[in-house]
């Protein structure tokens, strides 16, 4: 199960030249500066750009030297960077447009009933209920974007391409939508290629990261590894951090906290309802990690873990350093001032206590 994509496109002044092997399920984040070719790559995958190349999605060849499956025969969902709603159709008909045309693609369950309940769910999730009979030109920017997302999701795609889908969504709406997208990712088992400039979205959703620069891929790999590299060319800034897997071991009903175990330690996190025994994804941002030479109990910080200093790396600002730490078998990143690092004498090999101010369960 994988996606093999190789494309070459030439514009005046810009060339896309990529050769990628992506996982066939889960979320791949496409990351890179404005104008680096993210949209162009998605267009190639959708068959909208007729560059030379090859594309095999989970065993099906969509493009090769002699093959070119036209866009409308590729079972994909595409959320464009601009909403591209049909100006002559109201919201309901925009949603139905793709849904009706992909009805045959769904296995032989009662498709009509299945579709309409699926549609109702998405309409509810994205708050489109009151807008169904509006024409697109009477929608606000964010409303248009939500309709575009819903429209793409309703086509029962086997590959989802999303080009900054949440760019103009408000905070609250994002907080509702992201968990839903996480469930979608886990349940549907289809690959999702996701362009985003928001590191929190990426860290939260992605299993795999592709970093592009000027039409080329400069880094790619699984999220955890890639994020824990101190030499990472992604300038995540405030959002640098580590992501790793853990298992829910205990849930505390009084304090609404859960204890999760990972190779080498355990953490208290907000209880999000995950049952005991289930695997979860844990993200710890470098900015939330502080280091002490001894264990302090009278602090509001809940999680204290023994760790070993592995390496240092300079940060953007000369006052800061990024420290790579090992807790059991798990790698963490911590950010502190160079002065503190010096004062605490954090040479590689030194045993310390890490204080973790916040832990996020991201999946």
């Amino acid at each position, binding site marked *: 199960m994988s996606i093999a994509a190789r494309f070459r496109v030439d514009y005046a002044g810009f060339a896309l030249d990529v050769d990628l092997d992506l996982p066939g399920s889960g979320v791949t984040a496409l990351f890179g500066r404005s104008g680096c070719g993210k949209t162009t790559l998605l267009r190639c995958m959708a068959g909208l750009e007729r560059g030379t190349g090859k594309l095999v999605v989970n065993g099906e060849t969509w493009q090769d030297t002699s093959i070119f499956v036209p866009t409308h025969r590729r079972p*994909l969902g595409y959320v464009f960077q601009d909403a*591209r709603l*049909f100006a*002559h159709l109201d919201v309901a008909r925009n949603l139905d*447009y793709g849904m009706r045309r992909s009805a045959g693609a769904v296995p032989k369950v009662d498709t009509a009933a299945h579709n309409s309940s699926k549609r109702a769910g998405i309409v509810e999730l994205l708050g489109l209920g009151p807008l169904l009979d509006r024409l697109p*030109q009477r929608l606000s920017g964010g409303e248009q974007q939500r309709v575009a997302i819903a429209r793409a999701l309703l086509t029962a795609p086997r590959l989802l391409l999303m080009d900054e889908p949440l760019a103009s969504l408000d905070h609250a709406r994002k907080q509702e939508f992201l968990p839903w997208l996480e469930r979608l990712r886990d349940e549907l088992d289809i690959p999702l290629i996701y362009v985003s400039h928001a590191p929190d979205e990426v860290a939260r959703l992605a299993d795999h990261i592709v970093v592009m620069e000027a039409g080329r891929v400069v880094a790619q790999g699984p999220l955890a590894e890639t994020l824990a590299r101190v030499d990472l060319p992604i300038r995540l800034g405030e959002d640098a951090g580590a992501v790793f897997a853990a298992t829910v071991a205990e849930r505390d009903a009084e304090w609404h906290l859960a204890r999760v175990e990972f190779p080498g330690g355990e953490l208290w996190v907000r209880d999000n309802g995950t049952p005991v025994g289930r695997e979860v994804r844990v993200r710890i941002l470098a900015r939330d990690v502080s280091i002490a030479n001894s264990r302090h109990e009278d602090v509001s910080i809940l999680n204290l873990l023994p760790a070993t200093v592995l390496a240092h790396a300079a940060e953007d600002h000369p006052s800061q350093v990024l420290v790579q730490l090992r807790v059991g078998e798990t790698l963490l990143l911590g950010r502190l001032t160079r002065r503190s690092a010096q004062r605490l004498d954090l040479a590689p090999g030194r045993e310390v206590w890490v204080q973790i101010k916040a832990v996020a369960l991201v999946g």
Partner: protein
Amino acid sequence: MLSPADLAAIWLTLKLAGVTTVLLLLIGTPVAWWLARTPSWWKGPVGAVVALPIVLPPTVLGFYLLLLMGPEGVVGRLTTAAGIGLLPFSFAGLVVASVIYSMPFVVQPLQNAFEAIGDGPLEAAATLRASPLDAFFSVAVPLARPGFLTATILGFAHTVGEFGIVLMIGGNIPDKTRVVSVQIYDHVEAMEYGQAHWLAGAMVAFSFVVLLALYWLNPTGRRRT
């Protein structure tokens, strides 16, 4: 007032203009679509050829069409061989001539309307599983609505008003090829001004109503973005 001959001519005119407009749209739409979207080198020449008939005076074009569709003309021999018989002096011949002559008035506005749509909506339709043909009917045609309106107005009105070519190809045969424009022309030539005024007035009034209705069917066409 209107004589029975006038009424027959009116009926014939509506039939001719109606059939012609439908055919113009049926033929003009794919031509305009092709012209709007092809990157081919042939776009220019084909576009020019479509527009050419109108630079010839109608009777002259009619004369050449008559030669072409007559018993010794290329088209005439083909239609005879095909068992259709000769086209001139028949309703079918009028339709053919009118279609040729009014084609640019249909193709040009449609081509503009199709070009104005851009690739965006069509690409979106393709990602939503619409085949090119499907997307054409479900997206391009509705979005090109103002172009269709203009094409219909110009094609219909021009066919109603044209008479040079109709006179030449049709031969002014009562109930068969004598349309209103020819009938008014005849009235004027015969100095039957009273009848000419009545008929012209009726036609202008009728057309005004039709055009007004078309205008009011047209959405305002303004967009916020």
